[in-house]
């Protein structure tokens, strides 16, 4: 199927926070109750619609275990969006966010959109991290924030779609250089290079660039 844009995402965060489950819920609408430790990376894809435009999401789900950290770092470059996930029932996963964020900022494209996700919101009784804390962290570091449940699917769609919308807006504003695929954005086949005239930073010129 043809698409207007293709966005590359990565999902990062400590092991066991539910990254793979989020991806599975988003691509297959299923929940996987057993922890199937990710080795290296896993890949998934899905089409969404924003502003009536088809957008293809390619999502790389990374391994949260410390041992795979250096491999995970290889995926920062080249991603347009990142879901940074912690588990609301495990404070340590929240405490590690700073490290994750530093790592991401160091190795990624500065325009990468990062969405902070507090997962397992269905486990209210075992909550260790207040929603307000997540919000505060996000505000402090300029991230978008959401609580989700990969189990009940609450907010899962929204998390992926809102991230895409954010990226889409940045494109409209001309922040992203859409002609450099290394940024994790690719123009779809239906997007003829008619608007391939805006080099990076040319903010004003790209308005209304996507005219199909």
């Amino acid at each position, binding site marked *: 199927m043809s698409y207007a844009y293709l966005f*590359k995402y990565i999902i990062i965060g400590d092991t066991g926070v539910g990254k793979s489950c989020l991806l599975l819920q988003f691509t297959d609408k299923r929940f996987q109750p057993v922890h199937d430790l990710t080795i*290296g*990376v*896993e*890949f998934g*894809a899905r089409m969404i619609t924003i502003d009536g435009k088809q957008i*293809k999401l*390619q999502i*790389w789900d990374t391994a949260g275990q410390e041992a795979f950290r*250096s*491999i995970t*770092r*290889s*995926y920062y*470059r*080249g991603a347009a969006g990142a879901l940074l996930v912690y588990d609301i029932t495990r404070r340590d996963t929240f405490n590690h966010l700073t490290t994750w964020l530093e790592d991401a900022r160091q*190795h990624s494209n500065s325009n990468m959109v990062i969405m902070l996700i507090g997962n397992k919101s269905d486990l209210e009784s075992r909550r260790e991290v207040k929603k307000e804390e997540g919000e505060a962290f996000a505000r402090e570091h300029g991230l978008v924030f959401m609580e989700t449940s990969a189990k009940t699917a609450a907010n899962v769609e929204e998390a992926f779609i809102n991230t895409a919308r954010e990226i889409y807006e940045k494109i409209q504003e001309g922040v992203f250089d859409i002609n450099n*695929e290394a940024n994790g954005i690719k123009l779809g*086949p239906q997007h003829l290079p008619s608007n391939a005239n805006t080099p990076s930073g040319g903010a004003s010129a790209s308005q209304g660039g996507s005219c199909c």
Partner: protein
Amino acid sequence: MDYFFGFKSVISQPDAEPSPADTVLRLVERVTSSTLLEDRRDACRAIKALSKKYRLEVGAHGLDALIAVLVSDPDLETSSFVLETLCNVTSSEVFDEEGVGAPVGEQFTEIFLKKPENVISVITLLDEYDFHVRLPAIRLLMNLLNNKSKEMQEIILACPMGVAKLIDILSDSRDFVRNEALLLLIQLTKSNANIQNIIAYERGFDQLFKVVASEGYSDGGIVVDDSLQLMLNLLKRNASNQTVFREESCMKEITPFFRSCQPSESDPGHSWSTQKISNVHSMLQVVRTLVSPANATQVVSPAQKNVFGCGLLSELCALLMSPGVPADILSEIICTVGESIRGCRRNQEFFGQVMASSSPPRTALIVLLMSMVNEKQPVPLRAAVLYCFECFLYKNDVSQGQIIQALLPTSTEAMQNISAGQLLCGGLFSTDCLSHWLSSVALSHALVGNSNNKELLLRVHLAIAKDVAPVSLLQQAFNILQMGGKLQTRLGILTLLSTWLADSSNSVAQFLKLQNAIAFLTALVASNEHDDQEVLVQSLCAFLLGLCVVYNNDSNSNFSKESLCQLITKRIGVETFVDKLAEIAKHEVYSKALKHPQIRINTAADIQFDHEFCRLYKALENVIAKAVAPPTSPKGAESPSESELKAVAKYKDVIREQDGQIQHLRQRLAALEGDHIAAQSKIEELNVNLHHLQDQNTLLKAQRNNNVIIDESEPSSQSESSTEKLMKELEALRLDNERLQGQLEQQQSAKDLAMPVNGGIGLAVEFASTQSASIMDSFTTHEDVQVCSFFRPESSANTVDLELKTVRSRLDAMETELAETKHCLSVSIAENAELKEEIERVKKDQEDLLVLLADQDGKVQKYKDRLKTLGQTVSDDEDDELDDLGEDDEELSS
């Protein structure tokens, strides 16, 4: 011993020229301590010039200094010199200039890799666009990878953006740089899924297709093949990357590649170059990797849709029918088409309608089948056609039906056009035994899982000669079998008959009506011939006979289920029957055929089982064995334990597998013991070397003592200080020697430690295997019990249950055993590795020692010369170590 060779050559160096070691040392000194950039650079250049001929010296004395330069962010020229030097030092090739020498590239690689930062420095230098730097940096990484693949892969993975930087070079506009990077990436991606995934993530496929296109697709040079090799590395056994490949719509990039294979209008008869053949072959492998039946279905079917959707299938089919394609490529295309349509209805339909440009017009399928039954065509090609035909019929009851329908007398169409079925029947009656096998198997695929077709085929009659009345195909097939003939013929017919009778009681009933059928089969199974081929035929006959029992509807009172069982018991004996039945599974091609549907034969004499037949056999072997057991009340025989039998069979498989594992572990153990012995002899050798060194040392000491006496007789401050230096060095040398000895001792004790462990493993393996044997025994008993239990159906379920439990627990015990063995083995492997390391270290020390000795010798000589200049005569017996040169000197001075 090579070391001594080197040693002597150092000694005999004419004294006007300093030894290479000295020269290198001097240059290294300049590199490390000179304050002038120019001077350091010149020294690096000079070292580079020496680094082929005196690789050992440069590596031994200069490696650290060179690495230090590399890390210190040097200027372009210096970087280039250093990188090229390191390339030479780590190269696995032996340079002409070097003369004979032990390959030392790997050792220097090891030293270089001790610090991962060193590799990171090289990767950082890749940022430099100048090819004088970039190119040797790539080559150096390549050398390191060639020598220490695993270690390098891990280091590069751990290096931030390491893989990414290498991929970036793929878009270097200078071909010679890009090509070099391509080779590096091929090496880097070998069996490392993590690296493969990162490359796919970094749009590796995209880049590679760009290279392929820019080089002219199939007509391009070796770079095209290299790109495709890398692509294959990324895709093989990597489901995630296969998905990425599909998601990035890469399949459509393949279509123009095959379009470029079509003969050009201007030069239609042009034959393919070797490069083109290998390019196309590689691209076909890429396609097959994506649609291979070995992949999971959820990966294969979207890939197949993709092959169709982007016009690749039609391009491949066009190529199939176009002239001038070399035969081996044609076979590969046929297999690729086959796998692209296998089990995918839409693709199968498309393929069924592809027309060949022949007159009269025929479908491609018919043309291919004509080649299959044509004795003159190459065997691999004929096998490929059968495979493709099987893929065409796989899960395709419509086409299966059409094949059979066309053979029925009612069919009017059959009169005009030759049909696939007719070709196959024709093949059955040709004179070529491979045609018999191929045609029978092909025909059997029209029957797989299709009971309707099995009945329809019963109605097919054939007239072989004009004046003879038509005979049923079933009868004819049996006649061919009865006539004996070649092995291939009989295996083929038996495959066809087995597929036909399985799960079709009408077919069985018809078969039983054939005169002599049962008598013939019984006689064969009962026969005592032990020839390998004959045993195989007997086994298939037993299978066929068994099918007659299992799918018997008792319509024929002469050959009811019960009477057949009695016949088997009386004429063959149940045990013999079951043994014969089991022979098929023991044949080496059986398990291969079971694993993969592709038919792989290269000559007409190669034996091959059909994949579907093997599956059928696997599913029914146990059912038959059970059915022919001594007569029981029919109800009782059915009720106890279809599922339990299956369970037992499963456990049997597990045990077989574990047996295999034990076997494997034993082999490993043997190999390790071999290593151990090798290590020991290495130690011995080193010991001898050490003694030699000690002798040398004593000799030198003696010399020194002589010299000291001379010094005393005529003291001179200059010579005194040099004597002192000499003594110090000798002292150091002695210390080194002691250290070496200590290490050797340590090693010796380490080795002693390792010994009992090895013994322990032997025991464990022994134990595990007796364990396995006893479980096997218990199975045999278990089966006996089960056979008996058919007489007492009411209690059988319980007994079997109990048995199962015992078996299960034994299995568990055995698994623990196996785990223990594995553990022991890994301990021993570790021990061995330690030993090896020890040896490595001793070797290194020894090298150092040698270098020191060489220096030492140079100094002694110099010192002696100095003495001479000071007017002291040096008598012959004082320096018997000195060579002719010394004697010359003496003559001069006298």
